[in-house]
């Protein structure tokens, strides 16, 4: 058996070991690789940074634990930025398993910047129905959320005094791993003409690039890299920057595996061992 055939037949558990090590080692021994802030993240940062003190920012964190590795550090970084700028934050989630992540994220960000619940921020909790809630917020916040996550009536929360719809909100930020982003663009940005910044997972970020050109989105933070860029812009060293070393190494390992696989295939074809029709990715059918 040739070396190429042996290489292509390698036990997948060996690949798993490489990926496991590639993830664990940089997390345990961070090297802090360089990060460049891209224009999309800079635009998101500037949109928040230029808001006047006391402006109200509605942040809808529409994700669950499966994507928390990318979106939780993003939420914390963006909320810390808002708190540093003395902006008033109104947090909510449209996912039933969201409050368990959003509530601690708000608490962590507020404690880090010395802010107080109900005075500097409020967490409204979960509400079902993407479009219904988004349109409903255009009519009446109190109709959608009579009480906040802690069962406090909205009228007795100082940070919400005088706030009852998008009209009193200066910026909407959506951090999501789903099509919730489409609806925020349709309703908050387009119908109610609100400034909108999006934070999305890396895999879906490119879908929203067209909305940046149309100015329906004023900034886009994509995936863990986007979150790491945001942290760098804020001069923080959070979970996203820590995770980028691991993500970098795993990407390199996968790229090397792909190149090795193709070199082996080429060697087999030259020696008359390989062949067969191509599948959807060029691999065997």
């Amino acid at each position, binding site marked *: 058996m040739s070396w190429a055939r042996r290489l292509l037949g390698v036990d997948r558990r060996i690949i798993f070991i490489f990926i496991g090590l590639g993830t664990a080692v940089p997390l345990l021994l961070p090297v802090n690789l360089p990060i460049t802030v891209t224009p999309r993240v800079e635009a998101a940062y500037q949109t928040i940074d230029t808001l006047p003190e006391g402006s109200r920012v509605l942040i809808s964190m529409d994700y669950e634990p499966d994507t*928390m590795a990318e979106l939780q550090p993003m939420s914390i970084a963006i909320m810390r930025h808002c708190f540093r700028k003395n902006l008033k934050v109104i947090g909510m989630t449209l996912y039933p398993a969201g409050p368990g992540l959003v509530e601690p994220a708000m608490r962590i960000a507020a404690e880090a910047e010395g802010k107080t619940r109900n005075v500097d921020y409020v967490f409204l909790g979960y509400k079902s129905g993407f479009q219904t809630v988004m349109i409903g917020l255009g009519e009446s916040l109190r109709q959608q959320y009579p009480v906040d996550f802690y069962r406090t009536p909205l009228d007795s929360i100082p940070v919400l005094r005088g706030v009852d719809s998008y009209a009193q909100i200066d910026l909407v930020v959506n951090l999501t791993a789903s099509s919730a982003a489409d609806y925020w663009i349709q309703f908050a940005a387009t119908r109610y003409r609100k400034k909108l910044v999006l934070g999305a997972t890396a895999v879906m970020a490119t879908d929203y690039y067209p909305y940046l050109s149309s100015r329906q989105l004023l900034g886009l933070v994509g995936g863990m890299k986007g979150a790491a860029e945001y942290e760098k812009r804020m001069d923080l060293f959070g979970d996203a920057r820590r995770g980028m070393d691991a993500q970098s190494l795993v990407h390199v390992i996968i790229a090397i595996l792909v190149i*090795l*696989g193709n070199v082996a295939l080429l060697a087999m074809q030259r020696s008359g061992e390989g062949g067969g029709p191509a599948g959807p990715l060029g691999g065997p059918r």
Partner: protein
Amino acid sequence: MYLGPVLVTFAVGAALIALFFIPHHQAQVVNAEILEWATVVYAFALILGSISLWNTHARKVRNRIEGWPFSLVTMATLVTVTGLGVVQGTGEGTVVYAIYQSVNAPLASTMFALLAFFIASAAFRAFRARNLEATLLLVTAVLMMIGRVSIGEFLWPGFPAFTEWLLDVPNLAAKRAIAIGVGLGAVSTGLKIILGIERSYLGRSN
């Protein structure tokens, strides 16, 4: 036979489209009322989903279908977590909060993290430059994988700018075309449903 639901769909669909374009206060009051109804319908969908989940797993347990103990765990979890949530709430310090933080969140994250292992193995076995299209895909993927992470910049400072160009020019052109196509398709499907041409949501295609 399905005239009633079709007429309701038409009336609600047409009304919502009209209300979208009428800024008058009275129209928006009606709009808000319809939204309240929609919220109630969503709540019922959640109950319906829970009943459906219960029935599916109860059938598995009753008939001792392979893997039925897992169904038993699902049913017990559904009852326990729902019951605790109703009695205690879900805030910090409650049992539901502890279950969520120590079981649900780590399990869901782990399931998603496993993707990295399978993607690496699949990429090694299936990503082959056997024809022009596959080669283009492969080269772009490798460049993006390296260029979009910190190590790319470490290897060549021009990498981030190059990948940004790939995303902003060829990628954006394709994405914009797809977005316009999807938008037109959504409008077409919406009109077909409102006008009663598309009735598959009623449980049959005719």
